[in-house]
């Protein structure tokens, strides 16, 4: 049952990656590509322990690093998503009750993810010119993230509740 649940969540993340890499890149919005995958990860992170969220973030980021036509070195988004998911899961007690704070966290996390990604890439000696359109990407990401989160957070959390057996929920609490 646990493996089945794991497979369903993995499948949901793959679907998010496919949607982000095709539809969201082709609609031609200015600046960054709307961070659908990151929002899915954060939606899950708000229902998980920080350690669990970091693991989910790591694999989701890895998926974003390898999905064509990405040329990003493996690990760059993985590390960024792991850190951001860990922090957001840790902030859960402070932002849970409010309707606006999770969205603010989404916006901040999108910006932080870009910065951390840049940091990992630069420190590991990636030769690409990573600062291309950096400012525009930061601003647009900060705007797109909460807009996506409004829909993605409830959807992901509903999905997670749907695939999580009740017994497991009690153990986690």
């Amino acid at each position: 049952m646990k493996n089945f649940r794991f497979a369903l969540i993995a499948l949901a993340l793959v679907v998010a990656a496919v949607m982000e890499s095709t539809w969201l890149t082709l609609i031609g919005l200015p600046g960054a590509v709307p961070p659908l995958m990151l929002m899915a990860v954060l939606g899950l992170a708000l229902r998980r322990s920080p350690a669990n969220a970091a693991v989910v973030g790591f694999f989701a980021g890895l998926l974003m690093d390898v999905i064509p036509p990405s040329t990003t070195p493996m690990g760059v988004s993985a590390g960024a998503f792991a850190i951001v998911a860990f922090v957001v899961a840790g902030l859960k007690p402070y932002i849970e009750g409010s309707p606006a704070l999770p969205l603010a966290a989404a916006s901040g996390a999108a910006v932080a993810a870009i910065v951390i990604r840049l940091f990992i890439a630069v420190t590991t000696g990636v030769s690409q010119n990573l600062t291309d359109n950096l400012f525009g990407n930061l601003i647009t990401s900060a705007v797109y993230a909460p807009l996506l989160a409004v829909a993605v957070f409830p959807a992901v959390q509903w999905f997670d509740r749907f695939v999580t057996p009740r017994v497991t929920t009690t153990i986690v609490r």
Partner: protein
Amino acid sequence: MARRRTPSDIDPRFILAGLVVLSFLLSLIDGRSTSALGGLRSASATVLSPMQNLAFSISSPVVSFFGDWSEVGSKDERISALEAQNDALRRQIAGSKDARRRVKELDSLLNTAGLGNFRIVAARVMSIGSASGFGATALIDAGSADGIKVNMTVIAGAGMVGRVLAVTNNSATVLLIVDSTSTVGARVAGSGQVGFLSGTGKPHQLTLEFIDDTTKVAVGDRLVSYGVKDGIFVPGVPLGTVTKVRKAQGTNGQLAYVDPFADITALDLVGVIVNKPRTDPRDSLLPEPKPSPTVTVTVTVAPGDGAFAVKTTATPKTSTTAKATASSTSTGKKK
């Protein structure tokens, strides 16, 4: 309840630290060599690209589904029937507009391929720019099953798009010419001077540097790809127009900014050149000189001191009009 050691038994900070260290290591290995983790990357591409293909192919039905869906629930039957009809007509117009645009693109692509004697495989762009934010690449829906191999040149009707970076059975990743890591050998049409055209990450600004410091280019000069024997790029493919020239830093040479002919931000239909032509098409593939700025020089003699006032204007005119202007100006001067 007996259970295995779960992440909750370990300090979560250790888990995060472990993952971050792993990320850095992966990036270090994957950023340097292509072989170490290349297998993993191409395996995931093989698994993921069919799904992307599916997502791409259902994207227009999804749009029309939402269009139909919005009509459900309207109470007034007549209004809803008329709205449905209106929407259907509107979709039809949009659809035929889209189809017409695609036909036009294909036409110009085939025209370029025909002129250059290229054999091309046509493909549609499924994804532009990596979702992870850097690297200007595109995913196309043709792969090794269609005869596409790594390093093949990719063109649109207007000109060069890039080269194939990686292939799977039915998709290929294209490194666009605007990517910061892309460099194409370029030749100035007419003068034949050669240089290197590099991407900057900006869609309308590539930079052109010359091997020879004494090379001179001017705004409006057009470039085609320069193919050396066994080089990557097919020679003679139109690249772009020089938009700005300045002195290169640290040398005596020039640095030119180039706007590519192909609109990289709006790619839909592209062609992959699967065979190199036996002869270099030289400048024959360059578009007809239509919107290229023509410089008109008007010379007027100021009465008295005999000094010349020279006015230079750059206007987008056809060359024939420009010639006519020039001749009429010279007759005017003789008077």
